[in-house]
Structures are given as structure tokens and as C-alpha cells.
């Protein structure tokens, strides 16, 4: 494996991590608001809180890691995407800022406020929607380079049908992933009422998830033929596996058993789709301007980044394990038998 392949694999893996943990967080925000709105918040909100409170900042770092890492490994991304995406990325930043801080305000600060919950829930859907448009942009056709610099055709993106199918896929997947996780967590907490409610959400959102996936897949043909052909030419099996994982996950939930394994299957489903998408997208990071071979950082920096990454993992993995052990795998904590121990 060459160093640029290693680099992109690492970054893509962290983005996958963000996809999972952030979806749980984003979706939970929406469900928390929705159940408060329908006056059922007593059923799930404690559960949501118990998981999210200690972990939300960690979720954010996955995102920071990705955008810092990609500028390090492929500095051209800063130039092209940075110039082109000023407005959409600023919108994402503002939404993230509102979300993160108002979560803290509501949770650590004063008493609960429905306004704070609304901001938290609404941003949870808007952020993945706007982030997902970067995937569409990367397929090419929206950013062009001329002698006067790099330009972004925002109007074209906004009126593009394919781009909207990606947005819809992003939103419904967030709700699906989140519901599947909460189901597992509620079951672990032996909270029967919550399990029943959340199970309905999980089943409900699985349908649009799979429909939207199909739409995006076939929409690719007219939007980015180069990518579609790359998938059909030997990379289709990733997506077949993904579908298989989906069927297993939903079947378990339907049969009301093995919620833990069902969530693992969901992670597998998105793992396959995510890496199949990414692998068939290579070598391009931005079609046709940035490809990983042409725009990789100089060798000494690349080596230094890889070394730091390995050392960093040695530090990070035990720490993450400790976090999960205390808040995810500790049955007493999950069931709320321990006092929260909050400062």
C-alpha cells in the first residue's frame, strides 16, 4: 500500500467513525425533541441523555480530525474545497456551533427549555443534510477552475435532483442509525416502554433508508458516469454485502431479538456502503482536479503524519475503551442505577 492510499484509508475510516457516532447524536437530538413535542419525553429522554452527555465532545473531534487530516495529507483539498465551499461550510459551522453550545447550555446549565431542545433537534437534521452535499460536489461538475481561480456553481447544486436524493438519504440514514442504536441501548437498560417506542421508529425509518439508497445508486449513472462504471466494474459486491447486512438487521428487530447484533449489522451495512463508495471513487478526491496520487503531501510530512497517527492510536484506543466501558458497557450506569456522578 502506498502512503497516499494509507492516508486516505485512515481519513475515510475516521469519517466512517464520525458517520456512526454523529448519526447517533444527530438522530437522538431529533427524537428527543419529537418525543418532547408529543409529550412522551419521559420515555426516552433520560436514556438519550445518559449516553450523550459524556460523549458529545468526542463525537465532534472525529470531524475535526477529518478536516485537519485531509489538509495535512492532501493540501490541495484546502485550496479547491476551501475556495469553493465558503458559504455551505460556514452554514455547517454555524449549525454545529448552535447545536454543540445549546446542548451544553440545556444539559449542564439551566433548566430544560423547549427552545433549546428545538434548536438541538432541528440542527441534528440540517447538519447531515448540508454535509452530505460535499459528497455530491466531489463527483465533479460543480467546481470549475479557470484562469481567474476556482468557482463553485451553487445554483446548479441546489437545483440538481441527484443532490437532493443524497440529502434525503443522509437524513433518513441518520434517523435509522440512531433509532437502531437507541433500541440497543434501551434494551440494555431493560427499559421496556422505551424499547417498544424506539423499535417502531427503527422499523419505520428502515424503509425510506433502503429506498433512498437505491435512488442514489441509480442516480449516479447520469450524474457521474465515471463513478457508476467504476462500481459496476468490480465494486458492486460491497453494496450487495451492505444490503445483506441491512436485511439481517431489520429481520432481528422485526423478530424482537438480538438488538445488539442488529446494531452491529447496521454498522456493517454502512461500513460496506461507505467503503464501497469511497473505494470506487478513487483515485479522485475531487473529480477531476484532485486525485490522491497527484496531490499527496511531500514524503517527509506524509511519513511524519503516519508515525504520529500510529502513536496517537496507541493513546486513543485505550482511552476510548475506558470511556465505552464506563458509559456504554457498564450495565449499572446504563440502567441508571448509579448516581450520575455529575459534577
Amino acid at each position, binding site marked *: 500500500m502506498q502512503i497516499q492510499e494509507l492516508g486516505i484509508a485512515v481519513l475515510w475510516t475516521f469519517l466512517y467513525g464520525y458517520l456512526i457516532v454523529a448519526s447517533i447524536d444527530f438522530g437522538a437530538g431529533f427524537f428527543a425533541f419529537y418525543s418532547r413535542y408529543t409529550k412522551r419525553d419521559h420515555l426516552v429522554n433520560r436514556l438519550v441523555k445518559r449516553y450523550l452527555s*459524556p460523549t458529545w465532545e468526542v463525537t465532534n473531534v472525529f470531524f475535526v480530525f477529518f478536516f*485537519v487530516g485531509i*489538509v495535512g495529507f492532501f493540501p490541495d483539498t484546502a485550496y479547491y474545497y476551501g475556495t469553493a465551499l465558503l458559504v455551505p461550510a460556514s452554514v455547517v459551522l454555524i449549525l454545529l*456551533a448552535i447545536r454543540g453550545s445549546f*446542548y*451544553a447550555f440545556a444539559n449542564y446549565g439551566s433548566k430544560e427549555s423547549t427552545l433549546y431542545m428545538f434548536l438541538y433537534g432541528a440542527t441534528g437534521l440540517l447538519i447531515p443534510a448540508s454535509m452530505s452535499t460535499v459528497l455530491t460536489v466531489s463527483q465533479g461538475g460543480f467546481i470549475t477552475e479557470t484562469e481567474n*481561480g476556482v468557482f463553485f456553481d451553487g445554483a446548479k447544486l441546489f437545483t440538481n435532483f441527484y443532490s437532493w436524493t443524497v440529502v434525503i438519504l443522509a437524513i433518513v440514514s441518520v434517523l435509522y442509525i440512531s433509532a437502531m442504536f437507541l433500541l440497543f441501548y434501551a434494551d440494555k437498560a431493560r427499559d421496556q416502554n422505551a424499547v417498544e417506542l424506539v423499535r417502531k421508529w427503527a422499523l419505520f425509518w428502515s424503509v425510506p433508508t433502503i429506498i433512498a439508497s437505491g435512488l442514489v445508486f441509480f442516480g449516479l449513472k447520469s450524474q457521474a458516469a465515471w463513478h457508476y462504471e467504476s462500481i459496476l466494474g468490480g465494486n458492486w459486491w460491497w453494496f450487495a454485502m451492505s444490503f445483506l447486512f441491512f436485511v439481517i438487521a431489520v429481520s432481528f428487530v422485526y423478530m424482537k431479538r438480538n438488538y445488539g447484533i442488529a446494531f452491529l449489522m447496521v454498522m456493517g451495512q454502512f461500513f460496506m456502503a461507505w467503503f464501497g463508495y469511497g473505494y470506487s471513487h478513487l483515485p479522485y478526491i475531487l473529480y477531476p482536479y484532485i486525485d490522491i496520487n497527484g496531490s499527496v503531501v511531500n514524503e517527509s510530512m506524509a511519513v*511524519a503524519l503516519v508515525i504520529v497517527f500510529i502513536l496517537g492510536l496507541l493513546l486513543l484506543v485505550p482511552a476510548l475503551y475506558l470511556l465505552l466501558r464506563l458509559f456504554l458497557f457498564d450495565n449499572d450506569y446504563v440502567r441508571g442505577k448509579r448516581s*450520575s456522578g455529575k459534577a
Partner: protein
Amino acid sequence: MFQDPVLMSRALTALTLGFHVIFATLGVGVPLLILLAEFLGIRKKDPKYTLMARRWSRGYVVTVAVGVVTGTAIGLQLSLLWPNLMRVAGQTIALPLFMETFAFFFEAIFLGIYLYTWDRFKNPWHHMLLGIPVAVGALFSGFFITTVNSFMNQPVGFDIVDGRLANVSPLEAMFSPAMPTKMAHVLTSAILTSAFILAAIAAVQLLRQRRNQLDKMSIEYHKKGLRLTMTVALIFAIATALVGDFSGKYLAKYQPDKLAAAEWHFETSSEAELILGGWLEDDGQGGYEVRGALKIPYALSILAGGVPNYEVTGLNEFAKEDQPPLFVHYLFDAMVGIGMLLALISFLFVLGRYIKRLNQFSKPMLFAIAAGGPLAMAAIEFGWFFAEFGRQPWALYELMRTSEAATTSANVGWMLVAFAILYAVLGTVTVVVLSRLFKENPVGKELKQSEHRGEAMFADEV
């Protein structure tokens, strides 16, 4: 003006960083003070210190949250507003930026654990141990980001061959000549400021003790807090001033234009005098005349080189278009002035322990401490604005101009407006939330509860 991407990018960078640095500074300093209080609480078996650690960490989470979201903003804005700069920075200085994310990870993970495990362990030392990675992670994030800024001031660690970067050495770029003084000054001033902010809160409580009808225990609590924070403040005020002096020597050697602009030192000369305050008037020959300033003989030579006959480079050695703006003089004076004042306040307070006549808790003393908190934060802002404006017109010193670094997008002005509104809202709500948080849980009430249960508790909603 609104259409000028360079100007708007500068303004938006200044706005975001100016806002972020408030929380970043507290983020570096406060965990250390929390650890110290928790340590004293366990060591002296004094629940007041333990409660102090708990209350500080409760406020700290709120400020961390704003630090995290504004930090995320600036991290991405660097690429959005300065794409050309980051294309070069990616090749040369990406290493510490990347390391910083690991420091964030580390800090974030242990902060989550630290905050939610106050009552999980039988042995209180175990909980304190979990706080150490938080403080270490915070110090390291401050350290790594400062190396990036040092590189902008002294870009080294690469060659330029035929207009392209070659022979990049990431470690050399990270440990640039600007790094040692910058890092030390940023970290010491952050701890000084955090200590003063916490002290100011306690001082305000003591000033209002009558109106808020504080009981004896609460008064004792705040006095303990003051003694702790002011001792730390004294140590780090001295350290900050010492390192600030080294920073001056660094500037004289490597960025003489910045020092000359800060001191309105136009002609190269030895036995240079330090200029405090004042204003500039045209001397009719294209130069300036300094008016109304307090001049301290030899002091600039001593600051720059350690000896009175050191030769200090004047601003006239530099081409007009390479000179930094001259108003940085006021920023520098304000920072140094506040630094001296903070050292004096904390010195008098600590001295009051040994000299009975100097009442530590007299009204004037408490007022001075209460003012010291905001002043210290102002010094941080002055210092950064001085350092950053003083580097102009360079984004990378003598390598890339700010105007070449910026984006070409025409929409930066609107983004500036949007972020200004965002920070105004965040700032306001932060203050409201923090003050409500502590008003609803007065110290007295919490102290009584902790006597009952042998520990301090928060209304537990789970």
C-alpha cells in the same frame, strides 16, 4: 470594503480567534486550578476545596462547549478563508495541527469521564487521577497550536527550489526559533488569566456578602478560593513577565520590524529608550515625531538585548510596504501595563498574609482583584492582536503576504455578519447560563448538603 475578500477574511479571522481565545485561555488554565483544588481537598480532608473543584468544573464544561464549537469554526475557517496559505501550511506545518487533534481527543474523552464519575470511586484519588489527562491534553493543545502560529512568524524547515517547496522537515518547522518564547508566554499567561478570572468571581462574592447574606461558611469558602487563586496568580504573573522579556529579545533578533513598530523606534540606535503611551505627529519630512510619551532611558535596549548599549533596529530599515501598522504600540503598552498591574495586585495580596496592616480582604483589595479578572483577559486580547497585526503585511513572515493568502470568494462579508451574530448570541447566553447556574446553587446550600452526606452533590436528575 464589504466586497474585499482579503479585508473581510482578516476581519473574520480576527473575530473568530478573538472570541475563541477567551475560551481557549480558560481551557488551558482552569483544569490545572481544578486539579489543584481537588488535590488540596483530598490532602487536607477539607470539603470546601472539593466543592470548589466541583463548582469550577461545572462552569468549565459550559466554557469548554463554546471553546469546542468556536475552535471547530476556526479550524475549518483557516482552509475556507486562507486556501493558499493552507496549501503551503499543509506541506510544512500540518504535523502539529494533526497532533493537536489527538490532544483534543484525549482531553475530550477524559473530560467526559472526569465530569461523570465524581461519585463512582471509593478512593477519591482515583477520580483526581482522571483529571490529569484533561489538564495535560489542554496544555498540549495550547502548545501545538502555538507552534503553528510560531511557524507563521518564523517559517523554517524547508527550502524553496525553483519557486517550489523542497526538503521539508516537519520537526524543524514545528520547533521554529519563535516557538520557545511564544509557547512559554502563551501558556503562562493563560494560567495567570484563568487564576485571576476565578479570583475575580470570588472577590465579587465577598464584596456582595452583605447583600447576598452570605453565611460564615460561604465567606470562609470564598476566602480560601482567593488565597489559592491569588497565589497561583502571583507565581504566573512573574513567570509571564519574565517570559515576556524573553519574547522581546526574540523579536529583536528575528522580527525587528514588529518590535520597532511596537516601540515607535524609527532610527536604528544603541542606548534606545522605551516609549510609553504618547502619540505621533508628522515631522514634515515624511517621518514621525513622538509626542506626549513617557520615555524610559536605556529600557528598550535592555528589553531587546539585555544590556543598555544594545543596538536596536529601527523601522526605517524596512520598506514602507513591509512595515506593520503603528497602532500596535498601544496594544503592546496596554498588555505590559496590565501585566505589571496584575503582578502588583497579586503580590500585595500574598504579602497581606504576613503583614497584618495590609488587610487581604479590604474593600480596595477586593475591588482590585475583581477588576483584575477582566483586565487579564483584555491583556490576552491585546497581546494577540499586537502579535498578529505586528506580523503584517506577512501571513508567513517574509514569505507570503496576507493578501496573497486569502480566498477570492466574494461572499466573505456576509459570513462575517453571520458569525458576528452567532458569537453575540453565544457570548450572551454563556454569561446568562453561567450566572443562573451558580445563583440557583448557592455555596451555602451546597456546603450544608456536603456536610450531611460527606460529599458535595448536585441536584441529580437521573
